[in-house]
């Protein structure tokens, strides 16, 4: 089975202190560290486990600038066979639909049975997977948390709000967006990354893909970016951990939550 996994390079929210920049139109990116979007990492692990069982190959693909090569390499160190970077000035300021259109063009260049995306990205809007499936006119399932291969069909499980589980049958080719927790992604050490450091990663631009820059231009544009003001009734406790706990206990007592 040939599997394509779409991955994205994002600021690592667990290892950064996210603050707004001076101009107030984006986050301050000076001291940020980046990594592969967490959901995408689960998707790659799932693809590798499927291929381990039924054979085939895993390709990882990313739309981004040169630095996205780093996350492609990390996923190749995990075991993905190939990486493809889709990079062009025309892709830079685009929106979810534009990304999906770029990916669609790349998918058409290959021959994939299954396409996986993360359910969402830390800095995204959880829309690329669905849009890509629609553009390809193939079945789509979101928030997938189990996959079982059954011939040319897949049995998949989806997480439903409230802790319920739903099972589906879906035929390939198809697009699935993967939920975290579907597996336990393997560790990628520095040694693994070094081993794939010199593997060639092909880069494709708009012309290579036959994509018209205008067709992928953003139709949804970011107008503003800010930390919301404190709303009515919200209170942020300050101090060190012990002080915060003490204040919280006092508050709970005062409001009758603790006796």
């Amino acid at each position, binding site marked *: 089975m040939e599997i394509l996994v779409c991955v994205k390079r994002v600021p690592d929210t*667990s*290892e950064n202190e996210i603050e707004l920049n001076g101009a107030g139109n984006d986050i301050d990116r000076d*001291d940020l560290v980046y990594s592969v979007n967490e959901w995408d990492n689960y998707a790659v692990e799932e693809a590798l486990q499927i291929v381990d069982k039924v054979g085939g190959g895993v390709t990882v693909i990313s739309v981004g600038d040169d630095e996205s090569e780093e996350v492609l390499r990390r996923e190749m160190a995990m075991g993905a066979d190939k990486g493809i970077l889709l990079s062009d000035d025309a892709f830079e300021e685009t929106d979810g639909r534009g990304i999906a259109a770029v990916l669609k063009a790349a998918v058409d260049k290959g021959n994939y049975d299954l396409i996986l995306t993360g359910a969402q990205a830390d800095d995204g809007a959880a829309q690329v997977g669905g849009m890509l499936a629609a553009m390809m006119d193939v079945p789509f399932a979101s928030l997938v948390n189990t996959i079982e291969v059954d011939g040319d069909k897949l049995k998949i499980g989806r997480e439903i709000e409230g802790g319920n589980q739903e099972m589906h049958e879906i035929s390939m080719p198809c697009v699935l967006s993967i939920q975290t927790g579907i597996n*336990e992604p393997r560790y990628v050490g520095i*040694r693994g990354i*070094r081993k794939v450091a010199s593997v060639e990663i092909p880069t494709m631009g708009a012309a290579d893909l036959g994509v018209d820059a205008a067709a992928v231009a953003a139709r949804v544009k970011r107008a503003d970016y800010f930390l919301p003001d404190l709303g009515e009734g919200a209170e942020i406790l300050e101090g060190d951990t012990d002080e915060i706990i003490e204040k919280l206990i006092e508050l709970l007592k005062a409001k009758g939550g603790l006796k």
Partner: protein
Amino acid sequence: MEPALLSPAAYKFFHIPTALFALLIPLAGTAAFAYIMKRRIDPLLKAAPDNRFDQPLARIWRVLKIWLAQWRQPRYMMAGVIHIFIFAGFLVLSIRSTSLVFMGFWEEFTFPGFGGTFGHIYNVFKDFAATWVLIACVIAAIRRGIFRPERYAVPARYGKDHTGEAVFVLALISTLMISESLFEASLAAAQIQQLQTAEFVAPGTLAWLFRNMLLDAPIAKLQSMHITAYFIHDLTFFFFLCFLPLGKHFHVITSLFNVFFMRLERGNIKPVRHGVTDEQLDDLESFGVKKFEDFTWKHMLDFYTCADCGRCSDNCPANAVKRPLSPRFISIKGRDYMFANFPLGGKDVVKDKDYQLIGDIYHPDEIWSCTTCGACEQECPLGIEYIDKIVDLRRGMVDEGNVPQSLQKPLRALEKRGNPWGKMEKKRGAWVKEIAEDAPVKLIEKGESADVLYFVDSISSYDDRMQGIAQATARILAKAGIDFGVLGKLEKDSGNEVRRFGEEMLFQDLKAQNTDAILEAGVKRIVTADPHAYNALRKDYDNLPPVDHISQVICQEVEAGRLSLTAANGDGKVYTYHDPCYLGRHNQIYEDPRRVLDAIPGLSRVEMSRSRDRSFCCGGGGLMLFYEPEEEQRMGVLRVEMAAKAGANVIVTACPFCLVNIEDAIKVAGLEGRMEAIDLSELVVQHLAA
């Protein structure tokens, strides 16, 4: 003069000279033994290399102390003393037993030097030896078979109990002692009956007892007893020799070699592969132990040598809190694997290429459970090592991507930010601001220079509570008039646990960055308050200026009169000192912190029963803080209970990880208000004279 009895060399059994049997038994026994040993050595020849031929004098010293003098045995007094008696008896009687073998076909045989007066003295001595060995065997058998000390128990998941084998071997040894004494006693009795000069038999010995019992026995009976005793001894001797390599008594043969080749240094970690430099690591196909042949030959010898005494597991904190690790079974499972896969009869078992030890005989949780505290190695009377094996198995798992999710996050953060929490590099030196007025700290990241570098390491740099240790350390250094600075954002995690958790390449990265920053800073000396950093900088880094732990610095400064400490009179507290593993066992700093405590006038101090090299790990440092083990309780809770039992209400330690674990444990144990924990540096700051 006719001999009182015919010797086995002269006797005939139905016209067949018994000398023939006496010749055939050793030939067959030796051949069988040689074959068994060849099969036992086979796997060692396929093993990874290990450099154990360095420092011969230090190695001979270990042999004299740990093997010959049985130095570690009395740490378990009863078992230890019994063992010393049996071991000493074996040494004495090995000469007698060997010469008996020759005497069966060569009547006049004596070892050179044993013919004259010395031989007579030796004979008396060996009679006593045989007697005390028999008594020791009886006591040991009663102890093993009836009282059954808990540490010999074999939990069901590890297979069957080993008591049968132990008692069987004691019976073999007893048979040797009794037959040797009977052989001697029957001859002496016959000589006395025939009024010949009899060999002197020391009163009170087994041979003396037998001789007196046989004084009235008919000569014919004595003759057959003499020959029978001889052949029982001969057969038992060679059966025992061939039986040794089949089980836990292999240590009788391997211990001498295992102790000679044992780990000389403490706190260090073996290279990924002996003979491969750090620069060549990238060229290695595979890292760590994945299949059995990835173990070094010394580690395989360890498996053979384990006597199953259970002292390692008895001291293992992971075992004490019921984590799925018992070091004893790391060895026994390794030995069982060797016996099964390199069988005496038949060919070596060839595993398929995807075979991995992890998941078969060892399990990931078992291998991640170790805090590398070193209590097992400190205790082992045979010089068996565990830490390097655990680290090698972890290296193998890391290389395969088999790392628990709880450890992946801190490892990634270490790679990206140089600390396991993923905190910003620029905040590493932020703790200095709070003490800027009374104890200004130079920041080398800002281009300042100093004589001494205070290497803070991650936890004391970033953790709100542990910054207290960093600040106390800075105050002490300032008070002592030492010109010091910190690296700030140029400092990365020392990587002590990164290496010990098997992520060698990440460790190499951190080491390279720290080494550059430290050498660039041009300091003459390094001080740290974190024993894990202390250990890494001393044992894992190269070519750095000398490194001291803050407890050593305080001790020197106090004793030189440059720091004076105010009295603790009337604080009503009872202090106890908890030895951090990486300060104590791994670096042998036991006295300096105690001398500092005793330099505080009026401070009342008690010792826990487990202290110094038997200290009990608090729960582990570095990445171990992130690991989520299966366990029934926390190591720290056990430790806090030990302190309470010793009558202390303040636990002083000298390691930020110990402080984290012990402070948490005090809360978990519900001892808040009755027990407190403090770092040595913080306590000293409280007592710094104005």
